[in-house]
């Protein structure tokens, strides 16, 4: 790794965003504690602790590299990730109907997790390079390239199929676009787009119409995806079938009440009513066993991470740094929102992990690299 410009300077230390780092480590530790209960049969928390260690190491490493080097590497990183996603179509390991893994000996890698980082770096580089003080807001023509930049990986993730991550990438990218200031008509068209999606959902799922239903998009969805959307609208309709996750998860969360049932006392958890309770549904375990107050604490910690990230972005040295920091914050936000929204029945069930809480090395390391990027941007605010 020649020219990585690995260096720490003493004057950087006061700028380390300790609040952000502490909040992230706190969430990760809570996650490990929670995993010890969520996966009682297998001691997954051991591995998760190792992942945290690896993640912190990766974060430190990323923080140490001058991000101007990372800026230069953004395009290769992005392309490498795209290549990995394409390669997945041919060499991937299929689990639960989706090809989302590479198996390299003992290591199972989820390229989609790293793609998020590649995408945000690429977008940050785009908005950095494309900066025109005279034309501060973006119209359609200037948005064409960033749209291609995020739609291609989103589409590749969608066909895995991984609806959750694709949604998250789409929403994050759009948020970054909005942050970068778009023309009013772009906002209008997007609003119209949201209306169209709502209209399609209404027509395909909610409208009272005789069979056979006239549907617009529904017939193209995979069966489980279709089931999850219809289950989202009517969770009681098939409690043991397609809506099983959603219903059981809501029962688990709700039954925690104010203070929860106690660590390792969760009935839903202990009796395995919830599948994926150590990964996508890990929040339900926390909510069931520790209650509303502990959930608020967790949301507060995520809030601290988000606010500190925006602070880092605000005081970043340059546009690239600012967009990287905003990008990390936005991605963490959407992931948290989608995951907890899904666990509490606000959103349809799509596979997406809860940052720092869900079991899994790829997820942990990718979020930690994001934190490392934030630290990187923060400590170099005065370095030229």
């Amino acid at each position, binding site marked *: 790794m020649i020219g990585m410009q690995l260096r720490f300077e003493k004057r950087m230390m006061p700028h380390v965003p300790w609040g952000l780092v502490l909040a992230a480590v706190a969430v990760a530790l809570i996650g490990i504690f929670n995993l010890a209960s969520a996966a009682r049969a297998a001691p997954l928390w051991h591995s998760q602790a190792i992942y945290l260690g690896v993640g912190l190491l990766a974060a430190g490493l990323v923080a140490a590299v001058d991000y101007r080097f990372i800026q230069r590497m953004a395009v290769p990183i992005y392309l490498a990730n795209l290549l990995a996603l394409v390669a997945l179509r041919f060499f991937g390991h299929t689990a639960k109907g989706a090809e989302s893994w590479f198996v390299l000996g003992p290591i199972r890698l989820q390229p989609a997790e790293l793609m998020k980082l590649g995408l945000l770096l690429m977008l940050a580089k785009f908005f950095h390079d494309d900066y025109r003080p005279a034309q501060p807001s973006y119209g359609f023509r200037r948005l064409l390239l960033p749209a291609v930049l995020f739609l291609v990986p989103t589409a590749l993730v969608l066909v895995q199929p991984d609806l959750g991550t694709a949604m998250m990438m789409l929403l994050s990218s759009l948020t970054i676009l909005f942050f970068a*200031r778009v023309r009013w008509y772009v906002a209008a068209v997007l609003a119209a787009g949201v209306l169209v999606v709502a209209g399609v959902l209404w027509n395909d799922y909610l409208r009272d119409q005789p069979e056979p239903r006239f549907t617009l998009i529904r017939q193209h969805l995979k069966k489980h995806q279709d089931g999850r959307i219809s289950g989202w609208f009517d969770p009681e309709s098939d409690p*043991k079938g397609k809506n099983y996750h959603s219903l059981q998860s809501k029962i688990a969360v709700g039954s925690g009440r104010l203070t929860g049932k106690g660590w390792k006392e969760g009935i839903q958890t202990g009796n395995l009513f919830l599948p994926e309770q150590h990964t996508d549904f890990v929040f339900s375990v926390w909510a069931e066993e520790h209650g*509303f107050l502990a*959930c*608020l604490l967790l949301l507060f910690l995520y809030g601290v991470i988000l606010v500190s990230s925006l602070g880092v972005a605000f005081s970043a040295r*340059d546009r690239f740094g*600012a967009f990287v920091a905003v990008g990390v914050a936005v991605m963490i936000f959407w992931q948290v929102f989608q995951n*907890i929204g899904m666990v509490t029945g606000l959103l349809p069930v799509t596979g997406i992990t809860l940052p720092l809480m869900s079991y899994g090395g790829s997820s942990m390391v990718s979020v930690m690299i994001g934190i490392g990027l934030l630290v990187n941007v923060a400590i170099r605010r005065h370095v030229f």
Partner: protein
Amino acid sequence: MTLGKNTPGRDLKAHYLYLGLFMFLGLLLLAANLYRLQIVHGEQLRAKSEDNYVKEVRVRADRGMIKDRRGEILVEGRPSFDVYLTPAFCQRCGEEVVPKLALWLGWDQAQRARVEQQLHEKHGTQRFQPMPVRVDLSREELDLLNAHLYELPGVDIVPVQHRNYRAGPALAHVLGYMNEISQEELSRPSAAPARYFLGDYVGRRGIERAFEWRPCPFGPCGLRGIDGASFQYVNARGEATRDKSGRIITEDKLLPIPGSNVILSIDARLQAEAERAFPGAAGAVIAVDARTGFLLAMVSRPSFDPNLLTGRVTPAQLSAIARDPLQPMVFRAAAQHYSPGSTFKTITLLAALRSGQFGPTSTVHCGGGYQLGARRWRCHKDAGHGPVDTQTSLKVSCDTYYYTVADRLGLDAIAQVGRELGLGAPTGLTHLAEVPGIMPDRAYHDRVTPGGYTKGMALNSAIGQGDVNVTPLQLLMAYAAIGNGGTLYQPQLVRRVEAPDGRVLEEFQPRVTRRLELLPEHRKIILDALVAVVNEPGGTGGRARLREVRVAGKTGTAQVAQLGKLRLKKEQMEYFARDHAWFVALAPAEEPEVAVLVLNEHGGHGGSDAAPTASAVLSKYFELKRSESALFGGERPEAPPLNEAAPPAPDPRAPERLPTTSPAPGRAGRGDGP
């Protein structure tokens, strides 16, 4: 890149605020939703989470037993084990579990494919329903599966009672058999409050089917009973939660109500004797209490083994039963009709007496046949019987006499008597299927025979050939009606239904179908003639004679195939071309209390191939009766004695009715035939 007015942080300043606000609102929305779930609906969702893991486990009710008249067990439950598979809990089902089951249970390819097909078809909640994959494990298979149960997630070994039909094929048509309920039947709304599940057995025939479930006067009863339930704590895989010592934790139980016992009127000992004494490959032996219509023995041969049909019957075994030329599944006693042959002459005789044109002394000359128009109807004795009076006509079974009767009376007068005696219509045998038989008359022949009715048809019918077709049970009930003075009873098999503790839930009384017009003098003429058949030299039924009791009876040899001029011996004929041998008996002849019918299909002659069986059954009947009255000394025994006409009164405090212990008849009457 320089600091200054155009530093990127500056121009997007407001956007940080908007983005922060947006994220804050997002987290607030999550918090609000958590508040809604955990605080507002918390109570309710906690209750749900607790129901979640209490599983209702069915506790099967024991099925009732079927017993004979004296309480001897005919059908009972036998402990056994079935294997169930719950698709939702079966991990690596297709790859590991099914191949292992196939290996250990010795499934062939077809059986394995069937299970895999079933597994494949289950969707949604169906995947949580255990499906039976094997019934009635052998001891070795049970040990093998138990030892490897931990390798077989989703596989349960369930103790289930299986039926044990103690006597095997004997009485099988009456008792019936059971098999698995079909998916289609399960989806049908059931009248019974006891619910059925996949893998449950249902009575398919006979008593098992008729008494599966019935509304009794004192509440629900039936062989099935009502299942109970226990409530177990289970995890999402359906595994019971256990305490530290491995005991399954349950909540309270709902105790099952065991099925009721059905007490038949059949006497197992008489049944066994009838089975033993009947020499034929096919046919029927029936004994009935002539004064009540309760059946005492009912052989229908060939039979099937209900143990086989109720258990793991293979398709090969089933098709072997279906292909058997003797048709073992056919209930010959009531669901098959035959030409009655000469046994029908009794009915013709009654018609003759009723017409007033024939009396006890009416004589017909038999020259070996009867000329009607251009055709001559042959008597079975080519040389002729000479002058034949009424009694002799029955004793020697002279066809010519009855041709004469038919020629004078026509068919309708005979059919009238036949129908009054229950021929041509179902007897009303409770709980079993039967056929109506045919009692032809003019209208019948005009309808079905090309060219319509001619006198010749009356001649044929008068000797029990032609289109007359009766079921053995019909013929027996008709004889019983003549014997008891004119009451045609509905034949019944079941005396009562009892709760397992012996409480009587339902009691069956004799049911009268019809009281027919039977003048005492006509009855006497007929009975005397029937006594002569058995007891007088030259009578055709001499081999039914008993020393201790006077037996009245009639032989019959019904032609099956149209034969040429030459009369062949039985051995010279193809089995299915041989005659049916009939014998119907009433005893004691003075006041008949029991009627016995023997039909030896393609057996040959009534006198030689049916009468001895009837004799053995009657002999057994009177032997049992003597031993019972000796044993109980006239006191009322637990079970009604064989000769008791009416079933016991339901109220034990009611004044005791002593069984009518008539002195053993027969001796005194011996030898005073006409």
